[in-house]
């Protein structure tokens, strides 16, 4: 079968064109849509595309001037090659432009359907009605909120009139399903139903560019270590602006208002109150959960244990508590002993203080100790910088300063980033034994626990001692068993004989 290719209409008032050059030769095999030749009119140059795949037969030569509609070549279609329906595009367009407009007359009902909200989203959940049955709504007024698995968006009214919902809160609807009708009011024009492409833009701000960070914003987010998916952009179609990126973490450290779901369907049960409360995850909670799971997945984490006799430290503390407080104006707690012991051991076992960065291992000659603190909205981990250089009093006052700031939600981002090792104390809540999760990108974390009087054997005799279990979770990719165990043993030795801290032995 041979398909004649004619000179298409290239513009008003153009009646003839000149063949500038053939890009394909007589007898060439051409693909669908491939450019065959270039045509010149007195206004412009055009390309003539193959309307089918096949062998080219040229009927007009370069330099020839021919009329619109004249045959320039034919294509002998190859076996199995698809025939392109010519000018399909134009037909589509004209049918598209027949926009059905909702009329003005009273009693006219405008059906609103679930709009397309993005690629690959086929269904949405009607999370809440903002307007009720019988409410009068105006054009573009938000009448409902809709959730997809990717985002929440608002549904604006497509006309003016009385709202009649056709779906209930919590219903899952397919794209195109009827969601409500609007009884058009007299004399007020309804918004004409726009072609589909623009109605997507109008009714939701989801697009391929949603969540795309501007050049400046993407740099800021990288530096803060925030994934673009974790924040919602305020720019056009949900693009992330520089301001969004600047604010990203500040917002995370502010307590989020807890909103309860409006869609609490009553559960019918024989007796007793059985209420379920749902709260939105705060950004902090989301970040924490994402990071914890990431650490579990991305590291080779395991935990080694030991126990420490706390009597020597407790004795020392009892002896000097008053003097220490008087001199340094701060209480002598356990944290300073543990921090100090860890810094000594970390410098001796640098892998425990190191981290993995891509294909490289990074070691530090300083100890920035992260302290896990329970703050009102969750766990925060401020950092004691250069803890190895601080005195006991210095550590205690840093711990106090950071803990107070944590309590008041006043910790800054720099105060919480960049630690090399973490200490967490589950003992304050009564934990006897736990396996803490590494504070990524660090490689190890020490877990302290409660102090319990236990019967232990010393010099062949059973004695009662205040004992604490210690747990060290570590990333086996960078820390070998010998290093982790030796580190923990060293910490134990230093704690059981704190004089060693003084003598550095």
């Amino acid at each position, binding site marked *: 079968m041979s398909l004649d290719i004619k000179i298409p209409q290239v513009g008003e008032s153009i009646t003839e064109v000149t063949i500038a050059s053939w890009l394909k030769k007589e007898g060439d095999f051409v693909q669908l849509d491939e450019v065959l030749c270039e045509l010149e009119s007195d206004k*412009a140059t055009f390309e003539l595309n193959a309307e089918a795949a096949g062998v080219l037969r040229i009927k007009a030569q370069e330099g020839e001037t021919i009329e619109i509609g004249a045959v320039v070549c034919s294509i002998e279609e190859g076996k199995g090659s698809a025939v392109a329906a010519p000018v399909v595009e134009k037909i589509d367009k004209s049918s598209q432009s027949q926009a059905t407009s909702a009329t003005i007359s009273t009693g006219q009902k405008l059906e609103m359907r679930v709009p397309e909200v993005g690629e690959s989203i086929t269904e949405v959940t009607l999370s809440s009605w903002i307007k009720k049955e019988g409410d009068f709504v105006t054009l573009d007024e938000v009448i409902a909120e809709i959730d997809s698995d990717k985002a929440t968006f608002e549904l604006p009214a497509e006309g003016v009139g009385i709202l009649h919902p056709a779906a209930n809160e919590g219903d899952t609807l397919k794209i195109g399903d009827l969601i409500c009708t609007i009884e058009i009011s007299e004399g007020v024009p309804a918004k004409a139903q726009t072609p589909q492409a623009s109605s997507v833009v109008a009714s939701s701000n989801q697009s391929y*560019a949603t969540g795309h960070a501007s050049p400046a914003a993407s*740099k800021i987010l*990288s530096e803060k270590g925030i994934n673009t998916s974790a924040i919602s952009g305020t720019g*056009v179609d949900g693009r992330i602006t520089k301001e969004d990126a600047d604010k990203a973490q500040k917002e995370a450290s502010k307590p989020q208002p807890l909103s309860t779901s409006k869609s609490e369907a009553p559960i019918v049960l024989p007796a007793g109150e059985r209420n379920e409360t749902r709260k939105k995850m705060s950004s902090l909670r989301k970040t924490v959960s994402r990071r914890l799971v990431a650490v579990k997945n991305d590291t080779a984490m395991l935990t080694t244990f030991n126990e420490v006799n706390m009597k020597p430290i407790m004795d020392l503390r009892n002896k000097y508590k008053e003097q220490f407080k008087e001199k340094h104006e701060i209480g002598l707690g356990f944290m300073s002993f543990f921090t100090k012991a860890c810094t000594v051991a970390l410098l001796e076992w640098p892998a425990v203080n190191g981290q993995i960065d891509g294909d490289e291992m990074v070691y530090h000659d300083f100890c920035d100790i992260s302290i896990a603190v329970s703050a009102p909205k969750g766990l925060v981990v401020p950092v004691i910088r250069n803890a190895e250089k601080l005195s006991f009093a210095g550590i205690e006052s840093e711990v106090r300063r950071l803990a107070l700031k944590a309590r008041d939600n006043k910790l800054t981002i720099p105060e919480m980033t960049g630690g090399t090792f973490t200490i967490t104390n589950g003992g304050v809540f009564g934990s006897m034994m736990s396996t803490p999760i590494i504070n990524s990108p660090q490689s190890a974390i020490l877990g302290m626990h409660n102090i319990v009087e236990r019967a232990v054997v010393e010099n062949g005799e059973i004695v009662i001692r205040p004992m604490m279990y210690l747990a060290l979770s570590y990333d086996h990719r960078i820390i070998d068993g010998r290093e982790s165990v030796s580190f923990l043993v060293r910490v134990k030795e230093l704690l059981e004989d704190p004089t060693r801290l003084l003598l550095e032995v």
Partner: protein
Amino acid sequence: MTYDITVIGSGPGGYVAAIRCAQLGFKTALVEKYSTLGGTCLNVGCIPSKALLDSTEHFHNAETTFKEHGVNITGLKADLAQMIKRKGEVVSQTTQGIDFLMKKNKIDVLHGLGSFVDKNTIKISGEKEQTITTDKVIIATGSKPSSLPFIQLDKKRVITSTEALELKEIPKHLIVIGGGVIGLELGSVYARLGSKVSVVEYMDSLIPTMDATLGRELKKSLSKLGFEYYLKHKVVEVKGAAKKVTIKAESPKGETVELEGDYCLVSVGRKPYTDGLGLDKVGITTDKAGRIEVNSQLQTNVPNIYAIGDVIKGAMLAHKAEEEGVFVAETIAGQKPHIHYNLIPGVVYTWPEVASVGYTEQQLKEQGKAYKTGSFPYRALGRARASMDIDGQVKVLADKTTDEILGVHIIGARAADMIASAVTAMEFRASAEDVSRMSHAHPTYMEAVKEACLAATEDRAIHM
């Protein structure tokens, strides 16, 4: 002396890196082998070639379009010596500008050949020899014109771009080997002054790395200047004599074509330049093409040493090197900058100009991406007709489903400046319709971009 960062090479990559380092509070040194700063770009590349391109374009217009504009001139004559003198002044003003910027930013400029003693020690051999220690090093030594193994560059008759910027006479017949950016720009300079220019290119099109439409259109435009082309021709011999040069090339059919001219410009590309740098002293590795190997942070296999610009992989463009200079300085400072390499524009300063960003149509086809095209010709623009610059078109490629702009390819007057708006739009992932809904001043060449976007959106250009 001890520095936080030492930059070797003062081209647009190196000096920009040095300034950004200084801005970030690093104590910075800039090492330069030559007496003037600015590297290839300022001394023997972008700036001087543009000076000559502008001078010769004025001459060409005076010769060809002034009469039509109603400007009559008698005794029109091209003064090549004056053009080259003016070019020299532009270069010296520009390089002095860099001297000023270095002083302003308190960057120590050390003249001499910089070479590694070890990874933290650089020896600078200039009029006197000195050694400095440095925490970090940024290699920005750039590139040199490359050649073909059998070509003897005598630099008198068989020349590179460097010599082509300093000719004492207008060639009668300039043979250009290589139909890339450099050959076509310098070929244009002399074609406008009356030289016959023959371009011998191994590939089947001009500027073969850019979108095929651009190469085709440019070929047509330059034909009007009298360019002759020998595409798909393989040069096999170049012989320079005292007053002439002959070259032999194999045609696609295997026949030998012989061309005789008075100059032969070898513009077959550029090669990374690391001679005398002492890379072996620190164990830095290069690839087969001689490029220093770097990771995504532009860090070499020696962690405190970075490399940027022509000496590493990627397009050999001044603005690419500049972005990398800033990137490395900020990375060293602990920041996390990004470079979108696909959104670095490419420009050819012929007339009409050629400029391009994003994917070419060929690349999209190879990726199997569903895309749509919108084109708009310059000759339908009021602005273009008013100034008689009607050669050219804008082509916009957009994603078939999302309408996101994937590539913008412009040939025409002022394309080089217009491409920036395409980069802006694409950095924000604008759709073709987005751009077509932004107001473009009338009458301007930029209207062609808007119209092409309209054409790409729903084939609804207004002025076609």
